[in-house]
């Protein structure tokens, strides 16, 4: 059986790792959202207004 060595992080390392994870996650979400909204604005700005108009009908 293969023995897997596990890394035990110190509290300081855990805190830093968690902060980095949150920052990376947030930045990726902003990046995706930016592309999503910018695609609307750039390629078909009227789509947003059409969508809003249809929803209010």
């Amino acid at each position, binding site marked *: 059986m293969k023995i897997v060595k596990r890394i035990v992080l110190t509290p300081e390392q855990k805190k830093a790792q968690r*902060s980095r994870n949150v920052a990376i996650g947030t930045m990726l979400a902003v990046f995706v959202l930016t592309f999503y909204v910018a695609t609307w604005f*750039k390629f078909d700005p009227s789509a947003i207004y059409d969508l809003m108009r249809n929803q209010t009908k």
Partner: protein
Amino acid sequence: MAIADNTKKVDEDYVVSTAMPRDYFDLLKPRVMSLVVFTAIAGLLVAPGSIDPFIGIVAIVCIAIGAGASGALNMWYDADIDAVMSRTENRPIPSGRLTGHEALTFGLVLSFLSVFTIGILVNWLSAALLAFTIFFYAVVYTMWLKRSTPQNIVIGGAAGAFPPMIGWAAVTGTISPESIVLFAIIFIWTPPHFWALALFKAKDYGDVGVPMMPNVAGNRSTQNQILIYSIVLAPIAVAPYFMGFAGITYGVVSGLFTAAFLWFAFKCWKMPSQDVAMVPAKKLFAFSILYLFVLFGVLIVQAVLNIIFNIAI
């Protein structure tokens, strides 16, 4: 001071970083980035034509991130000399908060992200200019010129001068004489700005072997060149008014501030070259920052008033 190791060795195979997001943010050189953002906004707002506000914001963010990326690559390459100079010894790599490898990866990822994002969402001319800016700062200036010639900041200054041109290109998709003038203002402003700093930080640069002008040509020659560049800057600084893409307010303010800039440059030139306190050089350095801020600030205010209220000042 030696470069500290920020990683905690867990065993022979693994190292775990203790770097915080703040350390990565510091890699972006936030103060330099704020000047880049400011001048890029000016270029974007002064440019003729219109851009969707959201796309405009995306363009500015991409320019800011691209500038930050080149700052990270600069810190990666210069970590050895940053550790020795008092002005830079607390940067993330020499202080041990980040490894050079982390900074290099971060800088490269942000470079590609910013260039491709502005290319896809704005236009490919601004992407090409941004890519060139990053390359120019990281490779031409940092890796080549900085340690090899006292003309380092003269040529390398081009990297800091591109942002308004990128902002302009984001709106118009072109490079025009007006955007070249905005480029030229920062390009010609850079030597007196940096050489004023180099005069009173000459020892720091000398200690690490960076050939700044005062160490190579001497203080007197540097003072002469500061004055010459300041004189050359004067007509370029007021050119936006005479070319018709800035109003009378810009003409008056730029004229007054350029006269003050020349006065500080003259005082710096008059300073004895062996002066210990270097007060005139420090004053010129401080004023040069205010000068650029005011010039581009007036351009922004004029453009905003014109766009929102249709008021020409």
